[in-house]
């Protein structure tokens, strides 16, 4: 992996930064173990992100979501649209999602460049895509369908994958750039996923960051991963169950220098830590954002 070397200026013209929470661009994932604590002692973070699928319907989860939404800006980060399937995105899923968008007025709506559904089965995982023009057509059809249905732009996240395809005709960052260019969607860059990909498929994470169209980047994700021994080697798995690793922080610094003061999320979805730990990770990201970006953060009202 090469040393960080980007000299590109922060993207002050980036249109996706207009709705960034004004004072604090760092958020945390809102998960059920924290509901009560957040209401009793609101943590010092700029915003919260949830998976909308956990809030379809009603009940206690939605009750807490609406209470917490009164205090924090919200991002809806979906895992169930299956944008990369050859089949169209489900109408039912779009309707339930739109109802939640109308209720919670999120500043970001996003999902992944991956697939989950095939035939009548929805496999509930973010599955890998070959990077070809055929895949781009399928993905773009579904991104456009989603954006048309919602009447707003979405962000699309780069995945972590454990297999790569022989017939790829472009790199992953070229694929992401092209999807954004064709559909007008923004990019949610998961820095940990870029690291996972670079280890599992042998490329340079910094080159990936440098290859991304900076003007499209609307959010960054940070998370922990796990190195899993397999077949005499190691597979790096995106587990979201531990602190962000130092190597990923290093790539994040590079990303912030290149993309500017982009909203950044600390993701943690298993083996939940204390709120103090989460807030500590958020503080670390905030320090990097403010130390390594300048003038990239413009609020619409300014």
């Amino acid at each position, binding site marked *: 992996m090469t040393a960080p070397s980007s000299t590109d200026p922060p993207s002050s013209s980036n249109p996706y930064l207009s709705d960034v929470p004004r004072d604090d661009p760092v958020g945390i994932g809102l998960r059920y173990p924290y509901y009560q604590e957040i209401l009793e002692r609101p943590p010092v973070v700029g915003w919260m992100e949830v998976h909308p*699928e*956990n809030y*379809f*319907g*009603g*009940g*206690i*989860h*939605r*009750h807490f979501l609406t209470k917490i939404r009164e205090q924090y800006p919200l991002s809806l980060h*979906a*895992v*169930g*649209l*299956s944008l990369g*399937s*050859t089949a169209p995105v*489900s109408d*039912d*899923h779009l309707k*339930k999602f739109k109802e939640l968008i109308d209720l919670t007025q999120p500043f970001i709506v996003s999902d992944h460049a991956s*697939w*989950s*559904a*095939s*035939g*009548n*089965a*929805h*496999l*509930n*995982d973010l*599955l890998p*895509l*070959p990077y*070809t023009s*055929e*895949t781009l057509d*399928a993905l773009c059809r579904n991104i456009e369908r989603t954006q048309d249905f919602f009447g707003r732009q979405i962000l699309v996240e780069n995945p972590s994958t*454990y*297999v*790569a*395809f*022989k*017939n*790829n005709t472009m790199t992953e960052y070229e694929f992401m750039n092209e999807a954004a260019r064709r559909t007008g969607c923004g990019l949610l860059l998961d820095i940990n996923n870029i690291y996972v990909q670079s280890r*599992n*498929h*042998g490329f340079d994470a910094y080159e990936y960051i440098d290859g991304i169209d900076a003007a499209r980047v609307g959010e960054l994700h940070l998370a922990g991963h796990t190195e*899993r021994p*397999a*077949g*005499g*080697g190691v*597979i790096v*798995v995106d587990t979201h169950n531990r602190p962000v690793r130092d190597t990923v922080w290093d790539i994040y610094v590079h990303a912030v220098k290149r993309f500017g003061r982009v909203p950044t999320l600390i993701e943690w979805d298993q083996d939940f830590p204390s709120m103090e730990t989460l807030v500590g990770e958020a503080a670390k990201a905030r320090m990097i954002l403010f130390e390594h970006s300048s003038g990239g953060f413009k609020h619409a009202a300014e």
Partner: protein
Amino acid sequence: MRLNDIQEKFRDLMLDDPAALESVPDDFAAVFAEGDIALAERLKVYRSNIVGGISDNFFKTFPLLEKLVGEDFLKQMIRAFVLAHPPSAGCLNAYGEGFPDFVRAYEPAQGLPYLPDMAALELAINRAYYAPDDAALNPQDLAALSETTLGERILRLRTSAVLISSPFALDALRKFCLEPEGLPPPIQKPTFLMVYRPLLAVETLALAEDEYSFLLDLSDGAPLAEAAGRVFDNFARFDLQNFMQKHLALETFRAFSVFAENA
């Protein structure tokens, strides 16, 4: 290979026997880039995420079944169900409608005849937990109606409500699972239940048979007078006034204004 074929083959492989990962057909293996780590090892990460993730999520729906049959038995049964009937939607909250029937046919559970109905009870609790929010019928809205209009009214149950009948002692078993003291209850006992969520907490309410029968008729859309006529025909001692007082207080019915045809 076309994208659609890749996705179909990948799906089938994930839902196949785990041994299938060790002998991926050559034409499908050929679509993946070769690396230092065998394809089977890399595909195992996905299989573990998919089958493990869906199973673990579904497992949490059944704390009572876990008490009754133990963690290992339940996990094995759920894994078999997930492979045979994977989710069809990208939201798992409503997954598993066919599980009680699957349990009924599941060979290792044949000695536990009450298990399918207990599975149905826990699915109903889960459904109520995630049901859309709605408002309860205000008793004053009923009091304002003339007798004729009242009789023609359709009283809808809350969106979360599920009515359950079983020849087995589901409620006693449920209570025993929650507070396992003394001997297990006798299994054979006709049971009538309503699971619903008046506000945020899910309630499981034991019903008399006539009460259950009347609620079932109402939930099928019968107007109040028609349903009352039928319940009196079948249960001469049914007390309509007492029933109405009880269920208005329990907030069993949905507010009129939320459904257009009866607003």
